[in-house]
């Protein structure tokens, strides 16, 4: 690819869950090429999967038609910086409630885990709503240990 030397990747996904395969394949390629450890690559895939799933499932009206979710990744010296943008309904993931992780099987609510992964696995979260678009930024720090949690 012509962008082989670039530390950046821009992904444009349709609002369709089958795009999760496109996401995982592109991420795998990016992380391999940029020497991102497998543990961090898995975390990036998990968090982006959860965000895209949320946007596709709840971000648009039933008859919204085809829309675009834009993901930008940048390999920094000791981190991967990520920006996710969509034109769905306003939603601030930073203000969502934390799930009760100690609840039993019967009491365990279904939902809320995706954003828990975001807050647990990523740093430097920032959200902005501007011109009808959600813009979520975060960073995955890369430690010296390849598979560190």
């Amino acid at each position, binding site marked *: 690819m012509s962008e082989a030397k670039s530390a950046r990747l821009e992904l444009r996904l349709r609002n369709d*869950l089958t795009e999760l395969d496109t996401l*995982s394949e592109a991420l795998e390629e990016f992380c391999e090429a940029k020497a991102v450890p497998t543990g961090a690559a*898995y975390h990036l895939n998990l968090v982006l*999967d959860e965000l895209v*799933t949320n946007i596709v499932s709840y971000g648009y009206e039933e008859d919204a038609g085809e829309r675009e979710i834009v993901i930008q990744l940048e390999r920094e010296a000791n981190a991967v910086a990520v920006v996710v943008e969509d034109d769905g309904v306003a939603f601030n993931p930073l203000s969502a409630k934390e799930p009760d992780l100690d609840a039993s*099987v019967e009491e365990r609510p279904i*939902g809320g885990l995706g954003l828990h*992964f975001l807050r647990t*696995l990523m740093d430097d979260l920032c959200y902005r709503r501007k011109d009808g678009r959600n813009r979520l930024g975060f960073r995955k720090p890369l430690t010296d240990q390849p598979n560190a*949690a």
Partner: protein
Amino acid sequence: MQIDETMDGDVLILSIQGRLDSNTSKQLDEVLTNQVQNRPAVVLDFSGLEYISSAGLRVLLKGAKQARASNGKLALCSLSPHVREVFDISGFSNIFSIQADRQTALAAVK
């Protein structure tokens, strides 16, 4: 994602291969919902499971609730370190019987 079904005595073993995400979780939901209500014990073998998201956990939680309601047993086995970590972060390690391999999982549900 691929789901293989095999029997060991009364125990149904479901081997999951591939990725369990919001795009594929419905497939497992259909199989698991049907089977946990009709079988005394189900083992989910995750040795071929490359990836799981919260959509996958959701289906497993639903299956665990149904198993409990019908007095059935459910155990998981052979989780990769990445998959295991997702269970740990979400607190799901505490609500499932997670076994090292298929043999110990079979022993756990018998």
